[in-house]
């Protein structure tokens, strides 16, 4: 009873809470880094160096009035934020934070497919939010977001096939173990796939330079324009949770998960002293920082450019990558 109910529940509680804490820290990191990029200080008023901003912001959102527009579809208007958040958090059940069985909730043999399929459910939150608001700009934004999500999902999924071919397994733990056996992180074996997945991930989480669904100048704020208070915060939470998902998936698939650099080199064996979960969190932090850095650096794409990049550049490269990987795997190794 303790083994099959209590321990998994404890693990789920720890992981969900850790993700939520990270989600509250992310906006602060984002504002600080963007401030530094633009030679500003970022938030400074609340607490030392503005660090308490991470606590004050969620409190403000919880205390705000939660408005439902009169003409909105009330049932779907409430359901949409839930349908956005649940998949984003559910994905963490298969992400290995460390090599020991203690550091992941479960290791299913279809782990990577599970991640792909569960994140594909998240699109309902966006579409239904736009439709249920019964307001034209949110509807336009949600259609944009859905089209963007579906387009880039194809590219990302096809790219992941080449990673699966390289690793020979769908289990997330198995993929990291395959990197341990190879002695190389797959980022060095599959650099093209890494770039494709990271770009696709930015697009799927509606980050700059792919943040068209939230283009304020054209859409007055995006699919969540009519939302306020905690229900708006849930969309915010889902978006940052999805960012962490992308960073965690990239870390696991391409940069060795909990492994230290070059796990097969004996001279670097002293790096094993640092526990695996610290390596994982460190790499996670690098990719989260990278996405903030990209946001502060690049301008937004135009809609036709976005679609051209997805369909005419990323998908052909992904297919070519699958073919090359298969040829190398079958005939050259």
């Amino acid at each position: 009873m303790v083994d099959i109910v209590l321990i998994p529940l404890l693990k789920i509680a720890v992981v969900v809470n850790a993700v939520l804490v990270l989600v509250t820290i992310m906006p602060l990191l984002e504002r600080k880094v963007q401030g530094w990029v633009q030679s500003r200080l970022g938030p400074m008023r609340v607490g030392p160096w503005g660090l308490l901003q991470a606590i004050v912001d969620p409190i403000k959102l919880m205390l705000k009035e939660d408005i439902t527009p009169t003409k909105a579809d009330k049932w779907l208007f409430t359901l949409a934020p839930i349908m956005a958040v649940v998949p984003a958090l559910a994905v963490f059940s298969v992400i290995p934070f460390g090599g020991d069985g203690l550091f992941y909730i479960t290791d299913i043999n279809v782990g990577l497919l599970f991640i792909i399929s569960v994140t594909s459910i998240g699109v309902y939150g966006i579409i239904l939010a736009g439709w249920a608001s019964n307001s034209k700009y949110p509807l336009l934004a949600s259609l944009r977001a859905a089209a963007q999500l579906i387009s880039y999902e194809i590219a990302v999924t096809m790219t992941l096939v080449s990673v699966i071919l390289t690793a020979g397994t769908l289990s997330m733990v198995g993929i990291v173990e395959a990197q341990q056996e190879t002695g190389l992180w797959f980022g060095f074996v599959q650099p093209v796939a890494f770039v494709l997945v990271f770009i696709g991930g930015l697009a799927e989480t509606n980050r700059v330079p792919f943040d068209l669904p939230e283009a304020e100048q054209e859409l007055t704020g995006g699919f969540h324009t009519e939302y306020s208070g905690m229900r708006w915060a849930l969309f915010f939470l889902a978006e940052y949770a999805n960012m962490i998902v992308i960073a965690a998936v990239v870390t696991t698939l391409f940069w060795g998960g909990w492994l230290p650099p070059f796990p097969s080199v004996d001279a670097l064996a002293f790096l094993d002293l640092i526990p695996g979960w610290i390596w994982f969190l460190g790499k996670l932090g690098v990719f989260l920082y990278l996405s903030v850095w990209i946001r502060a650096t690049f301008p937004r794409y135009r809609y036709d450019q976005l679609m051209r990049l997805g369909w005419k550049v990323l998908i052909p490269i992904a297919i070519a990558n699958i073919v090359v990987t298969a040829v190398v795997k079958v005939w050259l190794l």
Partner: protein
Amino acid sequence: MVETIVFYTLSGLILGLGVAVITTPNTVHSVVFLVMNFLGVAVIYVVLEAEFLAVIQVLVYAGGIVVLYLFVVMLVNLTRESEAHQDPRRLSLFGLALAGVVLLELAGIVVYSYGREPPAPVAAAATSPVQGNVEQIGWLLYTDYLIPFEVASVLLLVAMVGAIVLAKRELS
């Protein structure tokens, strides 16, 4: 015991959601019920230890096809006015007849299979040299069911080419 309870709870839920799909007046609501229905079916697959099928069910049906449904339902204005000149009872009678045929078929299956031994599991799964859900399905698809698999992929290719031809019609 636990599995039986889970199965009947889920079945009840899935049937209830199915009824909700066809009785809800709002089309978007009924699409949402359909998504939940598919998710419930995926959980039944997990209980049957067919994890691959469960994940594919979520990915293809809940995550892919129903999104298209939702697009169509949201963008096409579904009003009932065009049916005004028709006799609504004719459609209901037709539906009733179809439902009756399905009911007879199900009853026939129940009568036929009552008291018989359930068929033995497919032998190929036991003899396949690989372990695991995904591996076994892949093995079967590329050995015993190679030709149906290839025919299905050709069919998909034809559908894809057809869609492109239809969309690009003005170029010719």
